[in-house]
């Protein structure tokens, strides 16, 4: 997710054209990659891996620097708006705060609800408020926790989800928070009162498989459109075989004002995959990062058409993506240990 709205494009800013997407860089690591984020300055990409580390890649030099503190996989990465702090959240339940560009990164602090953990069980996502004062985390304890970014103290706990909370994001105006869970329930919270305001129905992103006797799905990706008129939630739908993860990628787009489902963004081919992250581009299209039995894909939709207008096949499965603040580049974290950057403009001559 993006923690702050993308800056409005100036009239002479380069425009992205998804159909021109091409490779703009890649780095190979020694372990399968999990999550990735551009830092707000666009200088670095942070990427987590199955060896429990987070790697910071300097885009210009390709130099990688390790952030080692977690005892498990890290799936949550976020920055404060100024970009000087990066937050990492792991399946060890811990959240660490780091100086983004430290030469030898060590945690500045951890966010501790009790002991040394922010959540009991996995931390799934982190978001920082647009004013940088509040950090939101969520996880497998079915809770959303709010923290004071200044001192790391726990401020509030938002409870109500009945399943693991997969994603959390601040509304761009900073007054509300959105959280999405395994059952596809999307809850809106008033940050002034900590009351739940409403629930948006993303149930098509979830299934209880009677044969498998387990839940499958969840809000794997979430993003507001730059004007906050739309909220996009991505995941898997129409699951026919939970054992093998066979379903179809889906992005549910809500009209945020009414809470009604505006569009279900699907794929023209049955890709048998999952949307692992979703980005609302400032030019109005939606990008979905899909992986599954038909490989990895970057999918591009206009929100007035359920089918994608462009399907960019990736060389390998990817489990996360991020959109650069320039609106022109996308980074993808791949199972084959490779971090790839894609550029949505014509290749340089």
């Amino acid at each position, binding site marked *: 997710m993006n923690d702050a709205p993308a800056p409005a494009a100036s009239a002479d800013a380069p425009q992205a054209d998804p159909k021109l997407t091409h490779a703009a860089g890649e780095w190979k690591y020694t372990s399968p990659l999990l999550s990735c984020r551009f830092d707000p300055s666009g200088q670095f990409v942070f990427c987590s891996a199955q060896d429990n580390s987070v790697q910071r890649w300097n885009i210009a030099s390709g130099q990688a620097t390790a952030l080692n503190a977690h005892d498990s996989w890290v799936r949550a990465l976020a920055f404060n708006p100024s970009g000087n702090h990066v937050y990492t959240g792991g399946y*060890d339940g811990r959240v660490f705060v780091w100086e983004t560009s430290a030469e030898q990164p060590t945690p500045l602090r951890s966010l501790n609800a009790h002991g040394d953990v922010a959540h009991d069980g996995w931390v799934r996502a982190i978001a920082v408020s647009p004013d940088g004062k509040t950090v939101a985390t969520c996880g497998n304890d079915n809770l959303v926790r709010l923290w004071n970014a200044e001192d790391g103290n726990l401020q509030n706990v938002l409870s109500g989800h009945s399943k693991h909370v997969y994603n959390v994001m601040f509304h761009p105006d900073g007054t509300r928070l959105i959280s999405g869970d395994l059952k596809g329930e999307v809850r809106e919270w008033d940050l002034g009162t900590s009351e739940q305001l409403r629930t948006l129905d993303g149930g098509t992103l979830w299934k209880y498989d*009677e044969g498998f006797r387990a839940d499958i799905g969840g809000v794997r990706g979430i993003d507001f459109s730059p004007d906050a008129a739309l909220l996009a939630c991505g995941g898997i739908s129409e699951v026919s075989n939970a054992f093998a993860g066979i379903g179809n990628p889906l992005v549910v787009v809500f009209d945020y004002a009414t809470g009604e489902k505006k569009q279900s963004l699907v794929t023209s081919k049955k890709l048998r995959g999952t949307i692992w992250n979703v980005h609302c581009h400032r030019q109005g299209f939606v990008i979905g990062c899909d992986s599954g039995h038909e490989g990895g894909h970057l999918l591009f939709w206009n929100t007035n058409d359920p089918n994608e207008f462009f399907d960019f096949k990736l060389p390998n499965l990817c489990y996360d993506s991020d959109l650069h603040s320039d609106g022109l580049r996308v980074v993808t974290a791949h199972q084959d240990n490779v971090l790839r950057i894609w550029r949505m403009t014509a290749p340089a001559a």
Partner: protein
Amino acid sequence: MKCQYACGTAEHVLERRKFLGTIAGMAGAATLGAPRMVQAVMPELVAGNKHIIMIWLAGGVSQLETWDPKPKTNTGGPFRAIPTSVPGMHICELLPHTAKQMHHLAIVRSINTKENDHGKGAYCMTTGRKQEPVADYPHLGAVGAKLLAPEDSPLPGHIHVSPGGSGGSGNNAAYLGPRYASIILGDGNPPRNTTPPEGITPEGDNRRHAFRASVNDHFAKRRRWAESDAFLSSFDQARQLMERRDVFDVSKEAAKDQERYGNSEFGKQLLLARRLVEQGVSCVQVTHSNYDTHYENFDFHIEQLGEFDQPFATLVADLVERGLWEKTLVVVMSEFGRTPSINQFHGRDHWGTAWSVALGGCGIQRGAIIGKTNDNGTEVADREVDHGHLFHTYLSAIGVDSSGEIVAGGRKLPMADPAAAPITELLA
């Protein structure tokens, strides 16, 4: 009294007491894994009041997410290992409640069945034999029912509490005959058709039964077969079941106990297993579904083992507290484990090469760890065993000489694979 069948063969039904008498007689000379068999002990006492609870984690639970974690290796996945009540023994963090009961349990970490197919793996693990086209072998529960269940028990000796299912009976007794096949309690519900049909009074039902019995007696005077006996006994058993239908009603258990086992379907079914054992059922299988996690192995194991952990730990603690642990063999098994390598969908695939089971009770040594795998779990590093060794061990644990034979259909058949033997160091 020994009956004579129309086929003229020797008694079909296992001469259970004779068999046990034989093994008791052998016990003095037995040196292989049966130190508890005392020659002077009467057969009924050797096997008396023993039970088996098999907890079947269908689809193949991951050994790395349960009994043999490999954190911080290239195969370990995201979970950490936690200490248990046995010093030096660590299991996966997904089993925090079970970890506190491990001093009652043992782990076998060195299983290699060389079998990665669901059906064939299940056959191996439940019968102790490889599936063969020319022979069929009975399920552990059927063998256990044959050896442990009193012949006059009003309850089935072999019950399978299954997720879903119609509530009929299983086809898993092989040559032991249908009497020892599992009665399936679909979703933990009582056996089907055990409520009296509407419109028939008890008196009318008794008259019906008497009429059927007289016709059957007349038939049996000239044409008596093992199958007809099994058929007749099924009627008697059904009537007894109808009278004791509340045995299957877990809501009869104390509210406090129901709370301790939790609201999950599996929790209720494990409480039912306890209830059935306490009511005298010899062998109970409870199946928990499903662990066939080719996709998102870690998410699914959180969900499934989250259901498994607390009820299972509660069951172990209860059996110990109620004095049933020494009489009840509890085994947690699957058809195979899961691949150490994490596939491209964050799943793990079928893996019969190096995996684990946990077991305890009866004659199983508490707190034991048998065998080990290498650093990242890709192969057995010490004390390789297979389904045959495990099956022998189960029988030894309930006090039976597993090298003995079962007589069925006039033939003497080894009750366990003669090529294997008990894991003697696992026996207390």
